[in-house]
C-alpha cells in the first residue's frame, strides 16, 4: 500500500521532470512567441542518447548527464538554425507548422534507428530506498530533484547576471526594442533553443531511468505534458512553468491514487482544458490586456489561388469515375479508395484549419467518433449501414463541435494544443469507456458497406461509393465557400478582432465550420469502419491528423480542389515509388517542412 506521502513525493518528482520540459517551452515562447511542438522530440532524443551512453559507451552517471545535455543542445541549435530561423519573417502559421514537422521527423528518425520497441534504461544508481516519514525515497528521486533545482538555479543566475541572459529577458519583453538596442536576436534564439533542448534532453533521460523504460511514444506525451504545465503557469512565464509543472505532477499523482493509472493522462488534459477555458493566460497572469494589433493577414501566406476551370474539374472527375471500367489492378483501386477517404478528412481539415484558421491537430478524433458511432449503430441497433454512416457524420459534427468549443476563444498555437489534447481525451475515453466502446478490445465484425440493401463488396463498387461521397462533400464545401459564410470564416481567420467589431460572433461561426467539417470527417471515419470491419482506439491516431495536415498544406490552405489533389498525391506517390510504410511518416514530415519553407501557399494556393 502506498501512502499519500509517497504519492506526494511521486507527484513532485514527476513535476520536476515536467518542469525541465516546461521551462524550455516557456523560454522559447518568451523570446519567439512560439510553442515548440518539437520539445518532446528532443526529450525523446535525450532519452535515447542516454541509452547509448549508458549501454554502449558505459559512461558514469555525471558524464552521461553531460553527454545528453550537450547532444540535445546541439539538436536544439540545429532546429533553430535550419528549421526556424529561415522562417523568421514569414507568416505566423509557418513556425507552428515547422515545429510540428520537425517533431515528426525527429520521432521517426529515432524510431527508424532504434526500432519502436521499448528499451530498458538502467539508472546506474544503487537500488535502495530510504525510510522518510510515512514513505520511502530513493536515490533517483533525489537525483531528479537535485537536477531540477540545480537547473533552476543555473537558469536563474544565467538570466539574472549574464549579459546574454539580460538579452534574453530584454528580447522576451519587447523583441523589436531589444533589436533596436543592438541585441543580437539570433544569438538570443540560439541560446534559448540550446538551453531548452539541453533541459529537455536531460529530462527525457531521467524519466527513462525513473521508469527504467524508453520508447518512441514518449515524445508526444512529453510535448503535451510540458505544454500543459507551461500553459497552466502562463505561457512564457518561467517561474510559472515550474509551479505549473509541480501542480500538474501532483494532480496526476493524486488522480492516479484515486482512480487508477489509465486515467493519468486524462487528468493532465482536463487540467489543460479547464485552465484554457477559465484562465487562458495561465494561473498567474495578473492583468488582462487587449492583444496587440496584428499586421494584415499575417496568419496564413497570402496568395492568389490557381483558378481551375470547371470543365477541367468535370473532366478529371469523369476520368476517375470511369476508371474501374478499365482493366486496372485491385491495388490501384485500393490506393485510390484510401485517397478518397483521406480526401474527406482533408476537406474537413482544410475548412477548419485553412478557411477558419483553426489548425487542428486532433482531427483524427473526428474520424474515431464517426467510425465508432457508425459501427455501433449498425452492430447493436441494426441501423442500415448507409444511414449509420450518416449518423456517424452527424455525431462527429455534434460531439466534435461540442468538445472543441472550449477552444473557440483561443488563437493560433493554443488552438493546436487544445485540439491535440481533445483528440487525446477522445482516444482515452474510447479506451476506458468499456461498456460502450468495448475498450482496448476494439469493435470487430462491423458489417460491410451496403446501400439501399445492396452489398458493396466489389472493389469497384466501394471505389464508386467513396468517390461519390467525397465529390458530393467537395461540391457542398465549394458552395459554402462562395456563400456569405465562406467570407465570414475567412474574415475571422484573417483578423478575429476586426471581425468581431463587425458583428461576427466567433462562437457561432467556428461552431458552423466545425459542424460542417465534423460531418465530412465523421462520414470518412464511418466508411472506413465498415471497410476495415475492425476498429480500436488506435485505428485513428495522431499520425493521421498530421498526414491530413500535410495534405492540406500541400494542396493550399482552404483549397477544396487542393485537398483532393494533395490526398491523391500523398497516398498515391508513396505507392508509386513503393516506399516502405515505416518511411512514410518521415517523408510526410519532410514534405511538410519543405512546403512551409519553400511553398507556404501549397500547390494550388491559399483561398
Amino acid at each position, binding site marked *: 500500500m502506498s501512502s499519500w506521502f509517497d504519492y506526494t513525493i511521486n507527484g513532485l518528482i514527476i513535476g520536476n521532470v515536467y518542469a525541465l520540459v516546461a521551462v524550455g517551452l516557456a523560454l522559447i515562447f518568451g523570446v519567439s512567441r512560439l510553442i515548440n511542438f518539437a520539445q518532446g522530440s528532443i526529450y525523446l532524443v535525450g532519452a535515447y542518447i542516454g541509452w547509448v551512453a549508458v549501454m554502449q559507451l558505459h559512461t558514469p552517471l555525471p558524464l552521461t548527464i553531460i553527454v545528453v545535455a550537450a547532444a540535445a543542445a546541439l539538436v536544439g541549435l540545429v532546429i533553430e538554425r535550419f528549421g526556424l530561423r529561415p522562417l523568421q519573417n514569414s507568416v505566423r502559421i509557418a513556425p507552428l507548422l515547422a515545429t510540428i514537422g520537425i517533431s515528426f521527423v525527429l520521432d521517426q528518425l529515432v524510431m527508424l534507428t532504434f526500432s519502436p520497441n521499448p528499451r530498458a534504461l538502467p539508472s546506474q544508481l544503487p537500488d535502495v530506498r530510504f525510510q522518510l516519514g510515512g514513505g520511502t525515497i530513493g536515490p533517483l528521486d533525489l537525483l531528479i530533484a537535485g537536477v531540477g533545482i540545480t537547473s533552476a538555479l543555473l537558469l536563474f543566475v544565467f538570466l539574472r547576471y549574464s549579459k546574454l541572459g539580460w538579452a534574453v529577458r530584454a528580447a522576451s519583453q519587447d523583441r523589436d526594442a531589444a533589436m533596436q538596442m543592438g541585441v543580437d536576436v539570433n544569438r538570443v534564439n540560439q541560446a534559448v533553443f540550446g538551453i531548452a533542448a539541453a533541459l529537455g534532453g536531460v529530462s527525457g533521460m531521467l524519466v527513462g531511468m525513473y521508469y527504467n523504460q524508453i520508447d518512441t511514444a514518449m515524445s508526444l506525451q512529453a510535448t503535451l505534458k510540458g505544454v500543459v504545465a507551461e500553459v497552466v503557469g502562463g505561457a512564457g512565464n518561467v517561474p510559472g512553468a515550474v509551479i505549473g509543472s509541480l501542480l500538474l505532477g501532483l494532480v496526476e499523482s493524486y488522480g492516479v491514487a484515486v482512480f487508477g493509472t489509465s486515467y493519468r493522462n486524462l487528468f493532465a488534459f482536463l487540467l489543460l482544458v479547464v485552465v484554457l477555458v477559465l484562465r487562458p493566460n495561465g494561473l498567474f497572469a*495578473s*492583468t488582462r*490586456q*487587449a492583444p496587440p*494589433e*496584428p*499586421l*494584415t*493577414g*499575417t496568419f*496564413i501566406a*497570402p496568395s*492568389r489561388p490557381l483558378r481551375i476551370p470547371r470543365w477541367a474539374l468535370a473532366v478529371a472527375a469523369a476520368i476517375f469515375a470511369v476508371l474501374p471500367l478499365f482493366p486496372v489492378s485491385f491495388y490501384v483501386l485500393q490506393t485510390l479508395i484510401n485517397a478518397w477517404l483521406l480526401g474527406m478528412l482533408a476537406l474537413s481539415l482544410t475548412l477548419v484549419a485553412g478557411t477558419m484558421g483553426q489548425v487542428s491537430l486532433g482531427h483524427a478524433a473526428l474520424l474515431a467518433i464517426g467510425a465508432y458511432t457508425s459501427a455501433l449503430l449498425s452492430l447493436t441497433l441494426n441501423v442500415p449501414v448507409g444511414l449509420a454512416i450518416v449518423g456517424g457524420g452527424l455525431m462527429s459534427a455534434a460531439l466534435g463541435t461540442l468538445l472543441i468549443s472550449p477552444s473557440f476563444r483561443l488563437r493560433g498555437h493554443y488552438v493546436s494544443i487544445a485540439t491535440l489534447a481533445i483528440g487525446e481525451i477522445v482516444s482515452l475515453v474510447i479506451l476506458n469507456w468499456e461498456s460502450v466502446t468495448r475498450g482496448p478490445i476494439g469493435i470487430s465484425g462491423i458489417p460491410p458497406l451496403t446501400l439501399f440493401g445492396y452489398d458493396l463488396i466489389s472493389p469497384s463498387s466501394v471505389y464508386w461509393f467513396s468517390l461519390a461521397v467525397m465529390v458530393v462533400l467537395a461540391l*457542398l464545401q465549394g*458552395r*459554402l465557400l462562395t*456563400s*456569405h*459564410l465562406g*467570407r*465570414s470564416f*475567412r*474574415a475571422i*481567420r*484573417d*483578423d478575429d*478582432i*476586426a*471581425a*468581431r*467589431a*463587425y*458583428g*461576427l*460572433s466567433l462562437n*457561432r461561426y467556428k*461552431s*458552423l465550420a466545425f*459542424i*460542417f467539417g465534423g460531418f465530412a470527417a465523421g462520414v470518412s471515419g464511418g466508411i472506413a469502419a465498415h471497410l476495415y470491419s475492425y476498429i480500436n482506439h488506435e485505428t485513428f491516431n495522431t499520425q493521421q491528423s498530421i498526414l491530413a495536415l500535410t495534405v492540406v498544406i500541400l494542396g493550399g490552405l482552404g483549397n477544396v480542389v487542393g485537398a483532393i489533389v494533395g490526398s491523391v498525391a500523398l497516398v498515391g506517390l508513396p505507392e508509386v515509388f513503393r516506399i516502405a510504410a515505416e518511411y512514410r511518416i518521415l517523408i510526410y514530415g519532410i514534405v511538410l517542412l519543405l512546403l512551409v519553407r519553400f511553398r507556404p501557399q501549397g500547390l494550388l494556393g*491559399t*483561398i
Partner: protein
Amino acid sequence: MEKQLHSMLSLRGLTRRFGGLTAVDAIDLDLAKGELISIIGPNGAGKTTLFNLVTGLDRPDAGTVSFEGQDITGLSPERLAAEGIARTFQLGRVFGNLSVKDNVLIGAHTRLRAVKPAVPVIGPLLELGLALLRPSSVRAEEERLREEVKAILARFGERLLPRIDQPAYSLSYANRRRVEIARALALKPRLLLLDEPTAGMNPTETAEMQSLVAELKAEGLTILLIEHKLEMVMRLSDRVIVMDEGKKIAEGPGEQVRTDPNVIEAYLGHGLSGTTEQESAA
C-alpha cells in the same frame, strides 16, 4: 445632465487601468446626434484605448458608456456592431486575403436578413442551410449588397473601384485605410469612430479624406474622430477634446482649445502651427 438625454453617446467616468498605468482616467464625454467630436492628444494619451472601451473590444474598470440612452457598458463588440456602432482601426485592420469587395461586404454582415435568420438555438443551423441552398431571397439580398458595395466604393473615386476584386493585402497603406472606412460605411452606422483615418497619407490623400469625412458629417452621421493632423481637426470638428496621460485636459471649440495654455503645455509644446508636430506624430 439634461445634455445626456439628447446625446447619442455619453461616457461617464470611464476608466481603464493597465497594471500601474491608467490609460483612460475618468473620461466624461457627450456626443450629440449629427455632431463630430475630435479627440486629440500626444501618442499614448489613451485615445485608442478609449475607442476600444466604447466599441466593446476592452472593458472599463470603472464608469459607464451609454448609447442612445441605453447602458452598453461591457457589451460584446458583436452586439455593439449590431446596435450600429462602426469603427476603423489605427493600423488598418483589413482582412488581408479577402478581396476589397468581400472586405466591404463583411461590413454589411450585421444587416444580413435573409441569410441570418434571428431564430434562437437553431438559427446558426438555418444560416448554414440557407448558405448552401441559397433560395432566391438570399441571392437577391446578396446581389443588392454587391451593388451597394460598388456605390460605397465609388465615394473614393477611382481609388478602389478598379481594385474591387483584388485581395486587400495587395493594396497600398492608404487604400487599406479607405477599405476600412468603406467597410464601416457598409454597416450603415449610427455612430462612426474613426481612428486616425489619414495616418500615412500624403497631403493630397489627406485632403480627399477630409472632404469625405465632411460629406459624411453633412449627411448627418455622428462621428468620433481621432486625428493628429490639426488642420483637419480644426475644419471638421464641432468640438475638440484633448487627452493627455489618460485624462481630459481640455474641451471646446477648436479655436478655444488651440489657445488653451494646458493644451499648449501638454500637447503642442512650443510650436503652435501644428505642422512640425504633425510630422513627428505621423
